[in-house]
């Protein structure tokens, strides 16, 4: 049962709206969603942060800062109650070296995200063209 406080649970729980990671912070871990949903948002200067994606159980986030020392490009907030487990950068990089299939799995997820971003750019450009045309 989801969020049955009587039952043991792994990871760490975040309340609805709580920020799990902050845009601009420097990351040293990746997060895996064990239960619940999160939204990835970026501050674009508008009245509300721009929502980039909603991720669900078994999805992960925070992986970009594992492969570079640049600050995180977006914030991640809990949508309802969420449980996440962090995976330490040091351990993960060691396992990636030992296990090519794990690298492949993370690469595939990142490719999937790029594909979604490309289709989003195409959709926005089309919408803009229609707006200009109309």
């Amino acid at each position, binding site marked *: 049962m989801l969020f049955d406080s009587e039952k*043991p649970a792994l990871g*760490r729980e975040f309340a609805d709206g709580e920020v799990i990671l902050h845009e601009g912070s420097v990351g040293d871990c990746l997060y895996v969603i064990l239960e619940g949903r999160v939204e990835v948002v970026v501050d674009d200067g508008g009245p509300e942060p721009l929502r980039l994606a909603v991720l669900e159980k078994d999805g992960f986030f925070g992986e970009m800062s594992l492969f570079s020392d640049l600050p995180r490009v977006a914030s991640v907030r809990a949508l309802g109650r969420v449980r996440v487990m962090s995976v330490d950068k040091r351990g993960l990089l060691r396992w990636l070296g030992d296990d090519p299939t794990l690298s492949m799995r993370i690469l595939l997820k990142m490719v999937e995200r790029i594909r979604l971003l490309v289709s989003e750019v195409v959709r926005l450009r089309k919408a803009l063209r229609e707006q200009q045309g109309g």
Partner: protein
Amino acid sequence: MELTSGSRVAVIGGGPSGALSAYFLLDLARQTGIALEVDLFEPRNFNLTGPPGCNMCGGVISESLMQKMAAEGITLPRELLLDTIDSYVLHTDSGAASIRPLHDEMRIASIFRGAGPLGAESQSPLPWSSFDRHLLEMAKGLGARHHARRVRRLDRDGEGRPRVYVQPLKEEAAESGETERLFGVYDLLIGCVGLNGAGVRLFEALDFGYRPPKSDRAWVAELYMGAEEVRRRLGHAMHIFLLDVPGMKFAALTPKGHYVTFILLGDDVNEEVAKRVCHSPQVRELFPEGWEMPVRPCHCQPRINIGPPVNPFADRVVLVGDCASSRLYKDGIGAAYRMAKVCALTALTRGISAEAFREGYWPACQEMDRDNRLGHLLFSMDGLMRHVTLFRRAMLMVVREEQSRPHDPRRLSSALWDTFTGSAAYRHIFRRALHPVVMWRLIAAMIRLLFSFLRKR
């Protein structure tokens, strides 16, 4: 010699190494566009309580395995978790010290391998699920066919392909009078037979000179205490005992809901040694007043792998898990996970000849065996701790100091944490334990203790 679409694979044994070998093989085959047929032979019924439904171990999933699985997209459903562990308490004859990690999340869980301890069946339906059954279901979810049949014999056909003979069902035996039945001919045979059954003999009898690793016995018991008492007395901590009790190396109490798992390692451990440990003041303190070990607790004496195997592979045959190379004392399930993956990757990318396994699989076995040699050295130092009071007290002092400083790198604490949780390779633990700062702190603590002793005199 390689696997192609339509190749048949037999996995003997459905514990973690068997289920994960089938799972990773099918998963990687799917990614590379190869359709395999995988038959998994496991006669054990994981829905049974007690030893008949259990693959016998302490039942703790390590922090590193939990993180690796999470990164892989394998998360454990809550019904598998009996408890989560947030700290370790080290008990010695000179006092205790609590070791907590630097993070504040639950990454270690205790589970039941089967349906739980004997007697638990009275609480039907059971409030938990079997870990081994979950892994088996994962493999079945990718297409593995589970056969609840006992394998009686293995041999090869004229082309060198492994053949699997099973024990006939009662009706088959009554009809034909046969004592074994040819089940199938396979392209690859994966042995995940552990060390506790007759499975290793099936592979010893094959033609490639396999010899199982050297083994020792542990003593494991599930003790009923009631959830409230368990929470009140043990909390979310695993309790480790390094005591001067003849015959024991170390003992541990792990909280598991209503139960506490008692694990004892040592030379020739048995119920007598277990009772001696249970009667020590350090252990008694954690049990309710007047508590006595049940006359016949649900217990087992599983064999544990303490050495390298000889020839764990040949053309079209490979052994994985405890019957081949596993991690010494701790995180056997994590070792099964790693070796099952290396085995699957080797079979699909390099092939299934002895040469392919020598190039792809054997180096991982050798690396684990080399690391275990350091593990032996590390665990042989427990004697220093158990018998030399000054060293023991100095170590507890350093651990307590580290734990009281929020920004301390906690090198000794983390080395002990990883030793007990099985979360890091022994070589990494060694490097941290032998760090000059740790050495200096230990020496300084010993000098302080000596001075205080002399002053008292």
